């Protein structure tokens, strides 16, 4: 691709790309920088009072690490379920336009709305619980298992998977569409059963195309606030919820801690983005 293209003779052409990137990325960087500055007390609410190391102490508390670990694990489980669903749906319904529409539909529902729907559906006094009474399985709300507001996070994981599998399904379908079915057909006539063909041919090639998206989904779920806020437990507190709580705490010291937590989340995200870019570069060549 020609680097200069149609910009010969325009001196700004060199600078404009960099300026544009700065325009788009800078606010995020600035936001991050501010967090950093605020966490060491240079700016922000605690600037006058808190000693600069106090905010960072929050990283040493077990509460913080429990929160982080719990969020990391539940997000991972949700990501895997979303991936499995997306691959299954994508492979099964790839030739059905209606199936594709359905697989993509949850994208239209905002995360808060999805979380609320989960409460209304899976809560102890929710729709499924009422249906259970109707069928005779239970009689009071307490009979229905507690799927929300506890550490087992069943409702939360289900909601996260529900919201994220369409995005992965889109990626799966895009990969499958690009390749077409010739490879699977060859495998079939060479004697491979459907399972053998999937395991040896479809999946290895699919993973290459889908891996970056899986990382992106995981990174997103780690940092998302809406769903854990509505469906998560109060012990351990989901990490984004913990961060927001601290940032609105009247105790200024706690506010400083919020910045530290925010930076931790950012660091984790950046690490995942690096992995994401690596995977993309690796899958870029070769077929």
């Amino acid at each position, binding site marked *: 691709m020609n*680097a200069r*293209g*149609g910009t010969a003779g325009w001196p700004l*052409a060199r600078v*404009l*790309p*960099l300026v*544009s*990137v700065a*325009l*788009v*990325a800078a*606010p*995020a960087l*600035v*936001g*991050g920088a*501010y967090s950093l500055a*605020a966490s060491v007390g240079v*700016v*922000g*609410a605690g600037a006058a009072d808190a000693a600069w190391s106090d905010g960072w102490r929050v990283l040493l508390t077990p509460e913080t690490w429990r929160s982080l670990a719990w969020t990391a694990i539940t997000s991972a489980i949700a990501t895997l379920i979303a991936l499995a669903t997306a691959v*299954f*749906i994508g492979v*099964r*319904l790839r030739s059905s*336009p209606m*199936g594709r529409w*359905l*697989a993509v539909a949850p994208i239209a*529902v*905002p*995360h*808060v*709305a999805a979380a*609320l*729907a*989960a*409460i*209304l559906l899976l809560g102890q006094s929710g*729709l499924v619980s009422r*249906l259970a009474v109707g069928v005779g399985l239970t009689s009071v*709300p307490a009979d229905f298992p507690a799927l929300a507001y506890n550490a087992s996070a069943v409702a939360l994981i289900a909601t996260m998977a529900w919201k994220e599998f369409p995005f992965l399904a889109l990626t799966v*379908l895009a990969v499958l569409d690009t390749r077409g079915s010739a490879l699977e057909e060859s495998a079939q006539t060479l004697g491979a059963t459907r399972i053998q063909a999937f395991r040896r041919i479809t999946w290895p090639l699919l993973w290459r195309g889908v891996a970056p998206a899986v990382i*992106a989904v995981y990174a997103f779920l780690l*940092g*998302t606030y*809406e769903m854990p806020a*509505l469906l998560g437990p109060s012990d351990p507190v989901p990490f*984004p919820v913990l*961060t*927001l709580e601290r*940032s609105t705490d009247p105790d200024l010291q706690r506010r400083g801690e*919020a910045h530290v937590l*925010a930076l931790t*989340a*950012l660091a984790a*995200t950046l690490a995942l*983005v690096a992995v994401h*870019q690596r995977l993309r570069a690796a899958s870029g060549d070769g077929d």
Partner: protein
Amino acid sequence: MDRTSRVVFAVLLIVVAAPALALVIRALGPVWFFPNIVPSGNAVQRFTEDFGGGRLWRAAGTSVALATLTGAGGTVLALIAARSLARARRGLRHVAEAGALLPVVMPPIALGVGVHVLALQLHVSGSLVGVLGAHLIPAAGYVTLYLLGVFSAYEWALEDEARTLGAGRVQVWTRVTLPLLRARLAEAVLLGALVSWGQLALTLVVGGGAVRTLPVELLAFLRSGDDHLAAVAALLLSIPPAAGVAVLARGMRSTGGVV
């Protein structure tokens, strides 16, 4: 479709439709006695009530205003960025993509906490302007990535042709670039608007609870125990994105998309 696929389709249909169904059912009435399936009470009355209904419509208005401005503003920023980056060297493009990716992947909480401090300094914390600025950040990122994709399939030859025919830079923009991209730009605005529409964490942190968008009110209704209005808010919240996604999907299909 063979039988297994038909079963899969049916299960998918239930899984996808159930949450929407739950919202619709709950919105039918203010009181939901257990174990009734359908709520009871006068729903219509609540919407005319000053407190309950009025809040909803005001919040919806705020959300619409924010979404529109974010969509437009984000697209302008992203267009400049993507257009100039699209013909840049591969190395620079990768850096640019990473740059555009940053506001997208940055957890809204992390972003919000930092931006909040900046907003305080600029005295826009807790105001619509501050929240708009905050929303613009992820929106610009998403739209930049989208437009980068659009430009990768763009027919540059058309612009070159116009220039050899005598069109100046501005004319190329107004007579070639913008008309060619009209549909895609509309989609970009839609995308930016959708990003703003669904924001909750960012609005809460930077707006401090003073800026009442639809998601903020949804959370407030829920926290105060009013499932009914929360469900109504959720439905209001879901309708524009549904329409928006349909438009975007149709656009994607015409350019060889997946659905």
